[in-house]
């Protein structure tokens, strides 16, 4: 259950009726209302909420300063993707003549025009949000509910101007993708702020020039996951659906499988590849029957009743008991059984169809991913995704994955290893030629 928020109380605005809010978000949990940003004084009275609803719709709604003239926009579009960043921009100008222009919602540079619910702001009144004395809360409602679970990056609030997404992003001329402008050229106004969230020692640092001070409560963790380099996480939408679902926290990088007799908690990652060389780590917080590796995306019978992801023919990795899994088949032990909090390293060479594993920085079976020597097995050709499960039914296991975020759970790696690719931060040295499972790593 997330419990992190960033907040501040506003001063006199440059223009209460004109503002723009821009944020890049990567959701981790879905299915419940989670607040992106809200504003209120205390826990009651006039308000503004920008949230993901439990039904996956994006919604912005609020009242004027008298608590009247409700406005509401509820997208038809659903936002269920936990593998990518969304760029959300709200451009507000309550002075415009056209009611439909007063509150514009943009996602990834495109204005949302299809709404499941739409009530335009009224003219001649001032809506709360950029209101002196109101508290802006990022990641929760003012009453401490609907905490946001996921990553936010480059939050811009512009006081005094209704802007379009082009101030904060642009279409890549090469691939046509919407990408971030990390140094927007905007006038922030009195209450404006810019939280890059890149300074790991000061995540709520305002870079707008206004040097606004924020208060952060809960556990806000620095991550290398960002709109320019999207890292793999575990994917709650790509898991065995029977029995009790595993839990996902810490941006879907901490996985816990229950001791449900009808579920192994099998889950795969959000990013995969058919070529390249990749490295990731997992801390076996509950080693037990943990099984980590990569699995062919093409396996049609995945999540069947074989008992474990690791029993699938397309799975390659290691089990906590010290055995390796090659094409779903167990072999004799190749390393000492894992202990709790051992850190597993997994190196997959999808160019040469080989894989290796390390425990606490030591490659098992004298493997050497850098030279290609002593791999644990030969991979079948295809596209692979990270995969985790508990080998045995009824056995709880848990692990904290580090796909390069630089974090196990909420704790940063203790001693970052070398990483020539500069993609991500890992506890141990990344083998030469290998990189993180992230968009830049995959596209290298």
């Amino acid at each position: 259950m997330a419990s992190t928020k960033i907040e501040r109380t506003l001063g006199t605005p440059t223009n209460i009726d004109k503002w723009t809010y821009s944020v890049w978000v990567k959701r981790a949990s879905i299915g419940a209302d989670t607040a992106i940003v809200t504003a209120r004084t205390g826990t009651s009275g006039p308000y503004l909420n920008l949230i993901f609803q439990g039904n996956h719709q994006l919604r912005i709604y609020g009242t004027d300063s008298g608590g009247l003239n409700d406005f509401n926009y509820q997208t038809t579009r659903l936002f269920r993707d936990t593998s990518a960043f969304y760029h959300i921009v709200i451009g507000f100008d309550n002075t415009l003549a056209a009611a439909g222009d007063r509150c514009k919602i943009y996602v990834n540079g495109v204005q949302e025009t299809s709404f499941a619910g739409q009530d335009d702001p009224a003219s001649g009144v001032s809506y709360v949000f950029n209101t002196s004395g109101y508290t802006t809360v990022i990641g929760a409602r003012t009453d401490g509910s609907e905490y946001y679970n996921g990553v936010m990056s480059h939050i811009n609030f512009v006081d005094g101007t209704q802007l379009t997404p082009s101030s904060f992003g642009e279409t890549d001329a090469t691939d046509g993708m919407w990408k971030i402008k990390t140094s927007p050229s905007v006038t922030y106004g009195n209450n404006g702020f810019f939280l890059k969230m890149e300074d790991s020692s000061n995540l709520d640092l305002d870079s707008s020039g206004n040097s606004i001070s924020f208060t952060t409560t809960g556990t806000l963790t620095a991550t290398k996951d960002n709109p320019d380099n999207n890292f793999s996480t575990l994917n709650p939408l790509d898991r065995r659906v029977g029995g009790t679902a595993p839990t996902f926290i810490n941006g879907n990088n901490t996985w816990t499988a229950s001791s449900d007799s009808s579920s192994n908690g099998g889950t795969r990652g959000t990013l995969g590849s058919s070529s390249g060389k990749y490295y990731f780590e997992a801390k076996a917080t509950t080693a037990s029957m943990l099984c980590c590796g990569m699995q062919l995306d093409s396996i049609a019978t995945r999540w069947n009743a074989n008992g474990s992801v690791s029993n699938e023919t397309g799975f390659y990795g290691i089990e906590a008991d010290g055995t390796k899994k090659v094409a779903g088949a167990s072999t004799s032990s190749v390393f000492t059984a894992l202990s709790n909090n051992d850190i597993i390293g997994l190196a997959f060479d999808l160019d040469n169809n080989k894989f290796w594993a390390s425990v606490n920085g030591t490659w098992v079976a004298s493997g050497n991913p850098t030279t290609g020597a002593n791999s644990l097995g030969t991979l079948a050709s295809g596209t692979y995704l990270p995969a985790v499960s508990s080998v045995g039914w009824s056995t709880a296991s848990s692990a904290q994955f580090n796909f390069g975020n630089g974090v196990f759970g909420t704790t940063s790696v203790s001693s970052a290893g070398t990483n020539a690719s500069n993609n991500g931060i890992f506890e141990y040295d990344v083998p030469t030629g290998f990189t993180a499972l992230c968009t830049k790593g995959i596209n290298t």
Partner: protein
Amino acid sequence: MAYIGRGTDKISNIEVLDNITFTNSAGPYNITQSSTTFTPISPSALVISIDGIVQSPSSVTVSGSTLTFDTSMSSSSTMNFIYQIGIGLITTTGDNTVTTAKIVDDAVTYAKMQDIATGNRVLGRATAGEVQEVQVSNDMLAGSIANAKLANNSVTFNSQTVALGGSGTIDVADTKPTISSLTPSVITNSATAVVIAGGNFVSVPQVEAINTSGAIVAADSVSFTSATSISATFTLPVDGTYFVRVENNDGTAVRTSTADLTVSDNPVWVTASGSLGTFAGASAVGTINLVCTDATSFAVTTGSVTAGLTFTTGVGTATITGTQTAHTTATTDSFSVTATDAQGQTAVRAFTITYSFGATGGGQFN
């Protein structure tokens, strides 16, 4: 009473000499007049009185300007006077002792002057003193003065110099125009004004461009600025090299000695001006080509390419490569590149390169 008349050292033709003080000796004693040595003619010319007694001339002897008595003269004795009858002994004047003051003005006669022989020079004083002006009248000059001895020993006509006594042909003065330079000397096919510098231009001359193939194209227009500068506008549709001919209204004319006017197309930029693209600030820009037709070289002439990048000139194409090192935040750098062709013609184009920097992290809300 006071004596009026001659000095006290003279009484008529008597020279009054200084009394001698005796020293208990016969002498010799110095004979002086007014403390100046005096040489008597002889002892007999002297009249000496001692203690009131006039001495016999035989009692003394004279040697030069000294006097010796025949007996020792007591110091208690007093010489009352000593005279010489007549003047003293006159001797030859010493060398270099006759001063100007001793010569009466205008007293030196021509007869006393040295004859000046032919070829002698009259010398005057080089330092202080009077300098006599010597005027020489024509009748004083015998024969002629050699030309070489004259300060101006030549004459100049129409810029031609002839030595005195020499001979030569003096050209009749002419005002033909001259051409010293063309600016610019390289033009395009379109109408272009060329400033012709030179001399003797007379308003308004005719100007022609003469192709090395022989084709003659008159200037579209000619404007007269001065006798040393005119401006001719040419429209020359054929590339090549041209002589330029200027003809004054009096028919005098000049043509450049070589085909100094070149007609050539300017280099033409192919690469559009403006943004060359947006590049990841921390990555290599690859190879950015700047293409300009006919260019033989390129140079960054305004601003500069970003530090870390390398600008390489070439024929037809310049390149920019490398990874910028100047910026860590999004920035757009501006610069201009001048392309130059073989004729020195240039074309300038302004470019920008934008650097973007990706995000490096985010905040995980747990």
